């Protein structure tokens, strides 16, 4: 296995009232690996992603990302670590509504280092949105907004991409575009952790981690083939 990008040790995230969104998970993700987190709503996928990016903290256990124990960092140090190492892609896109597409990308540059509009425009070219650079999010379709979100996540060249239901709000055509982008990112050697309900997208991952009630109930490997039906691509995974 590749050196680990992420290592979870008995990670638990409990909420007041005793609800355990994540319950004692041990998981290692190698550098350059594409992992799909799958499971029903409320199974803990998003919570697990938030623990990986440091937006949330475990109530128990340790989260190591790129060798860094996030529990050792305070909130601002985690923010600094996140902008250096992690790109986030959201199901709801979360674009700043009063900034244009290119400005939304530049926003990530601003908080990372320095603003470079040409570079931001180039990031939009990579997601085929060069002609929509000066449009506000409200003037973009859902698929276009998601691609802006991806461009923003990629602009600082993160080692790890965390995506939460990236195709959840997209039609098939736009979902395919996003899938294409993910495959390209994987080929570039980035570590992808994708939480999804979509079996086609999940089937593209090298490994599927299936969650239920905050626990890993199944791990299986995929051949990562985009062309084969997902059921045939999954080895050892239940449907």
């Amino acid at each position, binding site marked *: 296995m590749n050196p680990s990008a992420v290592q979870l040790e008995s990670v638990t995230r409990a909420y007041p009232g005793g609800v355990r969104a994540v319950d004692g998970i041990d998981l290692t993700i190698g550098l350059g690996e594409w992992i799909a987190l799958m499971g029903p709503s409320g199974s803990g996928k998003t919570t697990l992603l938030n623990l990986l990016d440091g937006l949330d903290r475990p109530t128990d256990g340790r989260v190591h990302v790129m060798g860094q124990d996030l529990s050792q960092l305070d909130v601002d140090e985690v923010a600094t670590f996140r902008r250096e190492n992690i790109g986030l892609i959201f199901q709801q896109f*979360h674009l700043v509504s009063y900034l244009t597409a290119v400005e939304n990308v530049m926003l990530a540059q601003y908080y990372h280092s320095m603003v470079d509009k040409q570079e931001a425009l180039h990031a939009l070219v990579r997601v085929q949105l060069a002609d929509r650079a000066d449009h506000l999010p409200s003037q973009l379709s859902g698929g276009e907004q998601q691609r802006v979100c991806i461009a923003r996540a990629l602009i600082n060249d993160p080692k790890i991409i965390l995506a939460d239901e990236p195709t959840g709000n997209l039609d098939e055509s736009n979902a395919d575009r996003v899938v294409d982008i993910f495959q390209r990112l994987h080929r570039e050697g980035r570590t992808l952790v994708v939480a999804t309900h979509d079996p086609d997208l999940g089937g593209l991952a090298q490994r599927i981690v299936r969650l239920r009630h905050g626990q890993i109930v199944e791990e299986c490997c995929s051949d990562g083939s985009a062309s084969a039906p997902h059921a045939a691509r999954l080895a050892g995974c239940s449907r």
Partner: protein
Amino acid sequence: MLGRMVAKAILKNPGVSLWTLAALTTCATLAALFATTAMEVQQKMSGELRQLGANAVAYPAPASATLPQTTPAPPMDWSAIEELLHARDVKTARVTLHVGLVEGRPVAVAACNPQSLTAMTDYWSVTGRRPNGSNELLAGRRVATMLGLSLNQRISIQWLNGESPGQYRVVGIFESGDEDEDRLFVPQVLATGAAVGPARFAQVPVTHPQVPGVTAGRYANCLSCHAATDPKIRNGASMPLSPGSTDAGSPLPTTSDFSYILMSIPGDVSAIRALDQAINDLELPVQITPLQQVLHGEEHVLTKINLLAGLALVAVAVLTALGVCAAVLARVVQRRKELALLQSLGATRRAVGVLLLLENTAMGLVATIAGFILGTALAQGVVRQVFHANVQPRVGALAAAAGVTLGVCLLAGWLGARRAAQLQPAAILRGD
């Protein structure tokens, strides 16, 4: 990028931004209004009071005025003092006090240039008119009552040195509200001619007849006071012409001529004190005394006005701060997803706080400029109504408006930043 974000964020939320801007502009307007008005009122009131005439008086210093019983009073040389005063643009009127007898009664007779006297005592309420000619006389109300004087009455004033009596016509009777009402005012030339200088008067002790230690300066005032109130003098129809004794055999409360200068000093009490200090530094034998009844009243009024303006400003600032803080907190709640997103992109809590502070500061700057213009315009209206004068835009008012407004902005921004720091980005971005 940050500037673009700040500008767009403000424009993106026009409702909250307008409310915040309106509150801040109101605050800045009132701050500028109060500050401008307070400064203008201070200046204009001082100016108005200066127009009333004298605000200070210069007496011979006690050391030179309290003389040994047998030492003749040396003539006071006012030339150096007057030169200094004129150099400082101080308007003056030199008054020389004599003791004269009218129908055998001792009275304080003040000799002064009529024009100078008018400039210093413009606030006197004169029945009749002020003297124009050298044989005309202006009588204080109390001494006129005591002597039974009426307008156009001709009187004869006998001088204690035996000079031929002066003949005067009473052309005016005045009320001043102070001890000047116990005096007769005659043109200086004639009085000087009558007295022919201080050496022509009998040289007698200038100490107070009843209160030891009272110096010549105060004694001059006491003299007129005595002339009006001391039963011995008031009823002393048989007052002898020769100084030094009364019909009862006690010392006559008389003096050689005694001069003082009424002054209209530009500025407030501090200017008077500064002038007194300058005179002390030059070791001139004079002391400056503010005319307390005017200046203390002025200070009192100005202090009250400033206090009132200050309290009103504090009240406005507090109310504005409450309104703006509420608006800022509302903005934080309204924009919680955006702020959470910024944190997910790597913004530290401090960076988010800076963004909120900058937004508030930008609105504060706009509000300060708008408020300063509005406040100055309102102050113009107030001052024109009260003083019939125009105001100039004042840097102090701009500073006050900026200080209060930006202070409110920073306070509100700080609270907003604190609120933003408490946001849970994971939960917010998840949609909880």
